[in-house]
């Protein structure tokens, strides 16, 4: 049976319109990122191609493109709806929203509050937000600099056995083990504690182990998920553009569409 492209689009359109309204009400404006960007190793995802002279990326990850553009001066609150491709031409539709040139912790708080509001408006209440800190992992990675790539690989697959096999101090291994297994409401990381306290929503957890290591994130990162769906609803975090503090989150619209079904 052929896919009903009109019904699919109608569902997506209803979801996006609801989210767009909330974002505009909250002072965000829509950004229209280009489909094609000059290739850079800093750009994530996208389909690489060449016109015979230069290399380009078709539909790269928008946050990494924003960072590469390096244009932020004033505070901007933006959102975008974009198709993102990977190298195998698999595509996902994303809705992302970002605060550029924001303030430490206030930007993160606003992004998480808005995440909750957007999902509530879509009548999705059975979800959780996990927060973690890349900075904490970076500190550990610096201590085990020789094995940085091995530790990153272990973090990505969450395999502590890989860490145990490395020739690094037992103290560092123990520290990594604690990070892997920390999940709760109160940690020894002040910024995360403050964030949880100020938002005060029982669906937010500190989970230091379940992060994806993205090299543009600087400190706090988030993952949004629902127990009845095996995929992330969205993820994001804090980064810098042009040395300005920025923070954002992108929803995976395909997963949201599945949940609405």
């Amino acid at each position, binding site marked *: 049976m052929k896919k009903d492209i009109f019904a699919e689009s109608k569902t997506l359109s209803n979801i996006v319109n609801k989210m767009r309204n909330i974002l505009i009400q909250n002072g965000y404006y829509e950004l229209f990122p280009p489909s094609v960007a000059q290739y850079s190793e800093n750009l994530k995802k996208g389909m690489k191609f060449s016109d015979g002279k230069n290399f380009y990326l078709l539909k790269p990850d928008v946050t990494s493109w924003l960072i590469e553009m390096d244009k932020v001066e004033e505070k901007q609150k933006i959102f975008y709806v974009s198709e993102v491709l990977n190298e195998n031409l698999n595509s996902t539709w994303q809705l992302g929203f970002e605060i550029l040139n924001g303030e430490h912790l206030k930007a993160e708080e606003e992004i998480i509050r808005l995440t909750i509001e957007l999902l509530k408006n879509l009548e999705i209440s059975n979800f959780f937000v996990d927060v973690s800190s890349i900075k904490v992992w970076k500190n550990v990675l610096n201590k085990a600099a020789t094995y940085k790539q091995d530790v990153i690989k272990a973090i990505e*697959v969450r395999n502590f056995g890989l860490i145990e096999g490395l020739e690094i101090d037992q103290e560092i291994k123990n520290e990594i083990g604690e990070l892997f297994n920390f999940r709760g409401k109160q940690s020894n990381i002040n910024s995360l504690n403050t964030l949880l306290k100020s938002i005060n929503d029982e669906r937010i957890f500190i989970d230091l182990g379940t992060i994806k290591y993205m090299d543009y994130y600087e400190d706090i990162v988030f993952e949004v998920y629902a127990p009845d769906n095996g995929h992330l609803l969205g993820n994001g975090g804090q980064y810098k553009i042009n040395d300005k503090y920025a923070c954002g989150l992108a929803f995976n619209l395909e997963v949201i569409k599945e949940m609405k079904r």
Partner: protein
Amino acid sequence: MKISIALPSGRLLKDTKYFLEDVGIKVKEPDSRELISSLNDYTFYFPRVFDVPVYVENGVDLGICGSDIVLERKNDVYVPVDLPFGKCRMSLIVPKGKRISPEEMEGFKIATKYPEITQDFFLKKGIKVKILKLNGAVELAAKVGIADAIVDIVDTGNTLRANDLEEVHKIIDISAVLLVNRITQKTKFDFVNDLITNIRKIK
């Protein structure tokens, strides 16, 4: 708490069943040709072993398959622990008497069920080869001569000997591994961590 597990049909299934029983999970095999069974709070799925990571990435809580399949399919799943069975190796193999190092294989045709792992292996060495993707009985390709070498799993080495082939280089060691869905790791955190702790004790 309901837990779903994708189990590998084929040669790993027997060891998987024994192992899961050791960690307190009794497996029920499906009746006749069904591909699903349930026992207590567990639902078991029996896909082709090559598809186990796909099921786990897309919502099944846990899975068990060989580490070769995880490396080949590159699905977004956690692989928190190796299991103490399914041990073998993936090797580069040539017809007997034609021993040559991988560095000298520029332009070779390599037949394999594992094009991704093979490509990564030769790319890291800066050697360009042509890969022929086959779905099984890869030894035949070297024997017939449609490939100069093959990349395949070696267990006892009996199949190689029977087909006049020899290993020239071990690419990776392989074992069965536990797979965990990324969201399950969060939503069933204590269950998953306790399971991993039990597995590590048995290992």
